[in-house]
């Protein structure tokens, strides 16, 4: 295999990582408030298909991304209504989101299946910077949203750890009763962050469609990326900046099977190589489950627990 192919792998890994980062930032925001949204996979697909359909009929990238975000807001509001207001089981509601989102995306996407993407997000031109060997193509060869994603991660990190609302948010995930006693509304905080998280997830799906997808194809559009993003949240120990590191690692493992296939390298049968990203994710989860690692992780303490004032 030549050096160029490896360069492309690194570059593509960073680009897959963008989807993973956006989706897991959405999940981090949601989970920090104490709500689990397992529906990431369904949200990604809904974002992808709604963005695709809008772009297909209008040709307007910005409108497409806006509609995708709007779809995320609607879906996440449903999840928040079920889990925060009606205190339904968060796990089952999230799974229902996956099933509903996957079904609806396939239903709406069926008429345009196999059609090529109507708009393409162009890479930023960094001029001479992209000519630096290795670093040039890997770091300076992406579109504007890739860089925006890193900025969003930094902003969210600042928000979570350096601002007052961020402190209240973290407290809501750890001790909602205390937040309630302080006079803040647990319900409002949980709604707001679940919805913001959903918007990020659907945006991630739409971006993935335009930047990485060749054509709308129900089976292969996300292919489990949503679940890997959930594992990434654990890997990042619910911290936005750490998600970037993990996303590049998982992005690389997702990209390697494609590189091996395109370079026609057959170390192992392609079906076995295709298991690689999922096995890597599982292995990372296992490594993080040792008692020592768990102490360092710091998951929100009341994650998945509905808050009811009377029952305190």
């Amino acid at each position, binding site marked *: 295999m030549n050096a160029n192919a490896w360069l492309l792998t690194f570059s593509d890994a960073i680009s897959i990582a963008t989807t993973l980062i956006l989706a897991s930032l959405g999940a981090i925001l949601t989970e920090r408030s104490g709500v689990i949204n397992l529906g990431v996979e369904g949200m990604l697909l809904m974002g992808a298909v709604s963005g695709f359909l809008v772009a297909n009929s209008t040709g307007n990238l910005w409108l497409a991304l806006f509609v995708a975000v709007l779809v995320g807001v609607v879906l996440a509001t449903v999840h928040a209504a079920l889990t925060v207001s009606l205190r339904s089981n968060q796990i089952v509601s999230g799974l229902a989101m996956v099933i*509903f989102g996957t079904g609806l995306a396939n239903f709406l996407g069926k008429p345009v299946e196999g059609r090529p993407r109507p708009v393409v997000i162009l890479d930023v031109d960094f001029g001479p910077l992209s000519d630096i060997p290795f670093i040039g193509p890997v770091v300076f060869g992406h579109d504007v949203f890739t860089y925006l994603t890193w900025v969003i991660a930094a902003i969210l990190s600042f928000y979570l750890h350096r601002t007052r609302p961020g402190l209240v948010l973290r407290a809501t995930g750890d001790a909602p009763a205390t937040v309630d006693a302080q006079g803040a509304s647990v319900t409002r905080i949980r709604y707001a962050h679940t919805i913001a998280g959903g918007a990020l997830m659907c945006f991630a799906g739409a971006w993935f469609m335009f930047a990485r997808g060749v054509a709308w194809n129900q089976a292969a559009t996300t292919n489990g990326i949503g679940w890997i993003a959930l594992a990434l949240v654990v890997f990042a120990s619910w911290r936005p900046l750490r998600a970037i590191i993990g996303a590049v690692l998982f992005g690389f493992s997702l990209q390697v099977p494609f590189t091996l296939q395109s370079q026609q390298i057959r170390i192992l049968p392609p079906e076995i190589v295709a298991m690689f990203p999922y096995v890597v994710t599982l292995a990372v989860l296992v490594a993080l489950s040792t008692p020592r690692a768990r102490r360092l992780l710091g998951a929100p303490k009341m994650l998945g627990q509905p808050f009811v004032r009377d029952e305190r």
Partner: protein
Amino acid sequence: MIVAGRRIQLEARLVTPKWLAFVVPVLSIVVALVIGAVFLLATGHAPLRAYADLLDNGYTSFYGITDTLGLATPLICTGLAAAFAFRMNLYNIGEEGQLYLGMIGSAWAGIALAGALPKVVAIPVVLVAGACSGALWVAVPAFLRARLGTSEIVSTLLLNYVALNLVNYFIFGSRGFFRDPTTSFPQGRTVEPSVRLGALSFFTDKRTNTYPTLFIAILLAAALYWLIKRSNYGYETAVFADSPSTARYAGMNAMWLQSSVLLVSGAIAGVGGAMYVIGPAGKVDPGLLQIGMGYAGIVVAALARYNFLAVILTAILFGGLRVGGAALQASSDPVPIAIAVVLQGSVLLLALGGEIFRRNRLRVVKVSVS
């Protein structure tokens, strides 16, 4: 929530009226059909005609209901598998992968061992082989959950993708044991005829798609119902589900309970895979894998509120949706089969929301503005 000087609040019911147990699911289905109708209208299909076709092709015609019962057979298994784990707050969402493994394990037994055995022994052997391989597939997540407390949700789910690729490898990627050696076309090797059951004809001369495995699935549901309601083990799982600390205080072995429930859940899903081998497929068949039986099983279990006997009914209901949906896709005004999945998802979301009204009632209280 305060609207117009009145606070709307939920109050816990002391007694749940019996009629609510029926009204909530029925209402969920009706509203889901309305949601589906909105999407059908938006994409230019006539909802009432589509639903009439769905009813006819999925439930009321002879071939419709027999196809539905056939499809419901493995769905009952994945539904039971999900219900068995979910009711103990163990979220095994890897039924899909466990079903594939059940198919592989039972096909192995059906090819390798069963030629030497009479039918009455061979079929149970094949079913047990499917159960064992399904349980094996969940063994790692079960161990991690019980020993280290790793969330079983993501780990079981990730293994679904591994299992899918494993099946593809056996059939498309290699010329191994599971592949039909007589042809270059990639398909599974057929198992011995002695481990297969013929389709039921329901006293007609027609050939249906319902197999006697349906009765095995129903028996399985009844057995699980007995296990949970009557046995010591079932009692312990119920206590653990309600309060893990109480169970631990009473001297129950939490590790054993958690891992055994997950293993049994995987085994039941594996039996579902074995039923394909005994019945319609007779081999490892990747074509059957694209229909998401595992995920549908979770919906079936949740809608049945994890009651094993109700799982049979909801599985038949959802099997019909799938069969009717397939007929719609093939009709002159093709509606994508994904409408069946949209309906499934909506029903689950609505039933989940409706659950709160079963346990609580809405009260409107006047509040004085201070």
